[in-house]
């Protein structure tokens, strides 16, 4: 087992464990913390794929901005814990669990069929294309239109959020 494989397995273990812990915690704050752990491990995984820019953005936007928003809202609403997982494990959730396992099996089967034996190592220029310089250049040339449109989306989202969240005027 090479060092790279070792790193991958450690990160994979951390991310899967944190994900499972996230969905099983009764307290939403704890869920949020585990999600941040998950995001951080994903960020390092991006680095192993030599996608530096995305890795940084992952930390900044997800772990930094989005999760802070989550935690804010959780604090703001002052929620109680959900009931324990065992108490709320009814038939519907059991069915959901089975179905999800089936979906997993299916996609795994499809993946195994389509990628086994291919893409054994990263492309030669993978380091090059992950660099912020390269991505920046593409973003402001080839992808300028979608890039500008994202600003529109963000503006609309901000206005929408304000309209939805503000108290009604008396």
């Amino acid at each position, binding site marked *: 087992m090479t060092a*790279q494989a070792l790193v*991958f397995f450690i990160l*994979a273990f951390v*991310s*899967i464990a944190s*994900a499972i812990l*996230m*969905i099983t915690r009764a307290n*939403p704050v704890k*869920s*949020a913390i585990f*999600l941040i752990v*998950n995001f951080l491990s*994903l960020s390092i995984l*991006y680095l192993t*794929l030599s*996608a530096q820019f*995305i890795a940084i*953005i*992952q930390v900044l*936007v*997800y772990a930094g901005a*989005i999760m802070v*928003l*989550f935690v804010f*809202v*959780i604090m703001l*609403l002052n*929620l109680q814990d*959900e009931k324990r997982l065992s108490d*709320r494990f009814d038939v519907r*959730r059991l069915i*959901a669990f089975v179905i999800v*396992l089936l*979906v*997993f099996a299916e*996609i*795994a089967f499809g*993946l195994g069929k389509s*990628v086994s034996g*291919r*893409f*054994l*190592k*990263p*492309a*030669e220029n993978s380091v090059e*294309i992950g660099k912020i310089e390269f*991505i920046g250049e*593409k*973003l402001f040339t080839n992808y300028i239109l979608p890039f500008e449109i*994202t600003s529109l*989306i963000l503006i609309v*989202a*901000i206005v*929408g*959020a304000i309209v*939805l*969240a503000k*108290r009604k005027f008396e």
Partner: protein
Amino acid sequence: MIPLSWYLFLSLILFTIGVLGVLIRRNAIVIFMCIELMLNSVNLALVGFSSYIGNEIGQMLVFFVMVVAAAEVSVGLAIVIAIFRNRLTVNIDEINLLKW
């Protein structure tokens, strides 16, 4: 070297956990977080493809996914707040107005 399929399987596992979370949790905020988890798992697959195929399209897509995710979270959380203000709960089993 690690083959791409490892990353893809990891992505699949995370995605499945996210779906499971959406289906079994009751707290709207936690469901939201599960959706974020699903988005991230897809991002992982995209970045993997990008670097193994050798073009930047996957990473561009990840960038835009993040922007949309940010927008979605801000609006979604605003909705959660609005619901909480009206119903004093974010338990989606109790938010079942849209029924027969």
